[in-house]
């Protein structure tokens, strides 16, 4: 049995080291890589199911084409034919419009390995085109972190095990970051308290010593309330405040005059006694980890919430002095040149730049493009018809497109509406380099097995398609098609990367994953200055959900929360029998209040609806949900995102998607209107 080293490339905190066991070119089983210091030889349930992912009967084997689009009338085609069709379209559009702006892509996080920036590299290589910018997931919080700390604040997550307390605001590692739980529970076993603040009584909340339920989107109110009490009782870190903050006077005045504890209690729904309990946690002069989950920033107040929590964390626990134990995310990728992403394409005589569209309103904005309109769309590493908002905008965009190509391992909702679908390789079938957005380990991913039937990696597709374009029109693309995956990886391992990870070459990574050397953070020096919460231009928090009593809010009184489920990542893993026992139906969780109000019983078929559409689901009544919250997991046969439509964002690419600012109503299913 041969053994190869891998990194799980999913959009997940853990980016686990894994080993594959290969016999006669076949993947027999998987294990965690014991040499990886974060996952330490273990995987999650999804990771252990990879044999069923790779050899799944639903996996796409060959390039396929359907005519007409959406008919389901799929025919197998050769890679040659696929490349010819795509190259014809790109060249014809270029001729028609005089540039490649009519060609574009939509790509996100289906595989976060560095070589999957081949999609961007491929489009860059044909000069100015149409591209998405921004990040639907975490950028609001990232910007808030940078504003507070002046840079990203990134501490090794393993260090959570040494904390005196761990306070989690709106993250659910028991579902989304299983391996972090061992560090948290290690701290707990040494006597640390685990505190979870979340509107949902999650699996993580259930393990907490103290669980505090909060109204969604009001975390900032709570943080400021606790901060006010810390200041009043003078149990905050005064030395830090006086030496290393820039706006203490302003903040102090704001908290004194504007933060009213009665209002804090009423907005957050948390009683004064419980707020005091949190004050006592944050006033212990010992290291305390504050983990801010992405959930806190999926609403209009996201940035302000995080700024307020950062402020509380730095005031309390005396954590400001050289120990800024606030966890959000780690920008591991910033150390790398990411040559594929940053590949410089040929210049165009008249068009200077690519056309950038905010990824969060991609379909709506793409539909509005003129001179030229968008006509060819490449969808890779993403399933927008399940994960994006505003499906109607997508459906109308698709009507305008002349060619849609989707690259995926499975027939996703988006693939179903494409003209050509190309089969993608799994990470066992390609080489890659992986860093995490959470921990500080670097891994190489080896190719262990031949591609499944005719599957190809994104990089291989880029190499071949760009060569095809150049054969037809010499010099059309400047993609270095001759460059192999290992060449791209070697180029990423610059002298500074090698120093940072104490490696001499890729061979060291084949031996074991490597930990990034810890930088001496600026916070320990006196030059570090922290920016305390400030009201900003927006005024105080808008309580986005209960803002007013408009007609829309009267009609749709429930706030829709759509967190990740345990055995999927977005719509990935849906086809794996081990992870999907029995006939899974879409389930909606609702409060006893909502059930009673609408005459709904456990197990009833119900309809979740708003002005954008409706979906059917089976009701599960929860004793633990806030009255006016309904919870639906993502993806499935009728993705819940059909009911999520966000207003256009003005600050292009600078906010995450406010998924949780969505309202719906619920009623019993009525066959007649189904």
């Amino acid at each position: 049995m041969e053994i190869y080293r891998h990194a799980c490339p999913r959009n997940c905190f853990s980016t686990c080291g894994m080993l594959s066991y290969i016999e006669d070119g076949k993947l027999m089983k998987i294990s965690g890589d014991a040499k990886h210091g974060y996952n330490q030889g273990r995987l999650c349930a999804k990771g252990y199911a990879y044999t069923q992912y790779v050899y799944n009967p639903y996996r796409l084997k060959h390039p396929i084409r359907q005519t007409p689009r959406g008919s389901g009338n799929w025919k197998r085609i050769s890679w040659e034919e696929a490349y010819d069709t795509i190259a014809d379209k790109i060249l014809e559009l270029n001729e028609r419009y005089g540039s490649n702006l009519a060609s574009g892509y939509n790509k996100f996080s289906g595989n976060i390995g560095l070589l999957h920036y081949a999609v961007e590299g491929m489009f860059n290589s044909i000069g100015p085109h149409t591209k998405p910018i921004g990040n639907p997931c975490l950028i609001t919080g990232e910007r808030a972190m940078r504003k507070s700390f002046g840079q990203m604040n990134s501490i090794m997550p393993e260090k959570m095990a040494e904390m005196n307390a761990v306070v989690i605001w709106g993250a659910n590692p028991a579902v989304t970051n299983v391996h972090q739980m061992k560090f948290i529970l290690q701290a707990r076993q040494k006597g640390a308290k685990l505190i979870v603040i979340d509107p949902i009584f999650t699996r993580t909340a259930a393990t907490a010593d103290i669980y505090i339920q909060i109204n969604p989107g009001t975390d900032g109110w709570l943080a400021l309330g606790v901060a006010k009490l810390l200041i009043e009782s003078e149990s905050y870190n005064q030395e830090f405040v006086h030496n290393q903050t820039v706006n203490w006077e302003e903040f102090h005045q704001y908290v004194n005059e504007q933060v009213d504890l009665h209002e804090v209690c009423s907005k957050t729904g948390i009683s004064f006694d419980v707020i005091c309990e949190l004050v006592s946690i944050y006033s212990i002069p010992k290291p305390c980890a504050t983990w801010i989950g992405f959930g806190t920033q999926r609403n209009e107040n996201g940035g302000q919430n995080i700024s307020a929590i950062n402020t509380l964390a730095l005031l309390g626990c005396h954590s400001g002095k050289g120990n800024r134990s606030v966890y959000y995310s780690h920008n591991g990728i910033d150390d790398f040149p990411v040559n594929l992403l940053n590949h410089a394409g040929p210049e165009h005589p008249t068009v200077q730049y690519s056309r950038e569209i905010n990824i969060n309103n991609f379909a709506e904005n793409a539909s509005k493009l003129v001179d030229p309109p968008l006509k060819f769309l490449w969808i890779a590493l993403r399933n927008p018809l399940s994960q994006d908002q505003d499906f109607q905008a997508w459906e109308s965009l698709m009507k305008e497109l002349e060619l849609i190509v989707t690259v995926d391992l499975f027939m996703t909702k988006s693939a179903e509406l494409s003209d050509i679908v190309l089969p993608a390789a799994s990470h066992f079938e390609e080489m890659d380099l992986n860093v995490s957005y959470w921990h500080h380990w670097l891994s190489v991913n080896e190719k262990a097995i031949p591609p499944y039937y005719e599957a190809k990696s994104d990089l291989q597709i880029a190499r071949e398609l760009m060569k095809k374009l150049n054969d037809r029109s010499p010099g059309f693309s400047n993609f270095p098609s001759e460059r192999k995956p290992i060449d791209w990886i070697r180029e990423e391992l610059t002298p500074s990367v090698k120093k940072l990870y104490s490696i001499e070459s890729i061979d060291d990574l084949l031996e074991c994953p490597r930990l990034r050397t810890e930088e001496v953070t600026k916070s320990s020096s006196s030059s570090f200055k922290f920016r305390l919460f400030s009201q900003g231009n927006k005024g105080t928090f808008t309580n986005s959900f209960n803002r007013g009593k408009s007609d829309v809010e009267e009609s749709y009184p429930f706030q829709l929360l759509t967190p990740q489920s345990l055995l999927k990542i977005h719509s990935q893993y849906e086809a794996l029998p081990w992870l999907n026992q029995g006939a899974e139906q879409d389930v909606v969780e609702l409060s006893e209040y909502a059930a009673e109000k609408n005459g709904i019983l456990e197990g009833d078929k119900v309809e979740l609806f708003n002005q954008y559409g409706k979906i059917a689901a089976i009701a599960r009544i929860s004793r633990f949900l806030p009255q006016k919250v309904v919870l639906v997991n993502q993806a499935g046969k009728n993705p819940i995102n059909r009911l999520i439509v966000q207003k256009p964002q003005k600050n292009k690419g600078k906010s995450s998607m406010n998924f949780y600012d969505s309202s719906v109503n619920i009623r019993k299913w009525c066959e007649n209107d189904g």
Partner: protein
Amino acid sequence: MMVKQMGFVFNVDLCFGCMACEIACRNENQTDSTVRWRKVSRLTDDSFLSVSCNHCNSPECFRVCPENAFTKRGDGIVQINSDLCIGCGLCIEACPYGAPQYDPLTQKASKCQMCYPRQDKGLPPACVESCSTEALTFVDLNIFCDKKMVGTIPGFPDTRLTNPSIAFYPAIERNRYFLKSSNK
């Protein structure tokens, strides 16, 4: 008495129902999709239970099998010899823990064998290896002893019939503050 009695120890307080153990078992044994040698289930609203074959001291499967397909090894592991199994399903009905599973492919019963091929090589069972918080461990129950450990927990089937080789650490109490507007 066996020389050894290897048994699982399950710490309710450390389990958050991630199901890694259940799928790690499938990965190791590549069992059919309907065959669940280990099962993670909800014990209460906020706690979980992970159970496989408990390699009982008085195994009912052993007693009811008409073909004498079950044996108990010197280390206490209860094995099933699939060559002898005729797929009658008596063991499946008799076991209080749902351990033997009917495999539609082989038309025989199969069950957790505590990864004895791994144990023989000095490795822990796959489920134990996969548990990131060490909520699931395994010990020789003939010699291991801990005052905090208990023989059963509420929600676990009656242990008197088969004397299962499993022990538990119960959950520790927690403070929970629900919204007043919640139904609590």
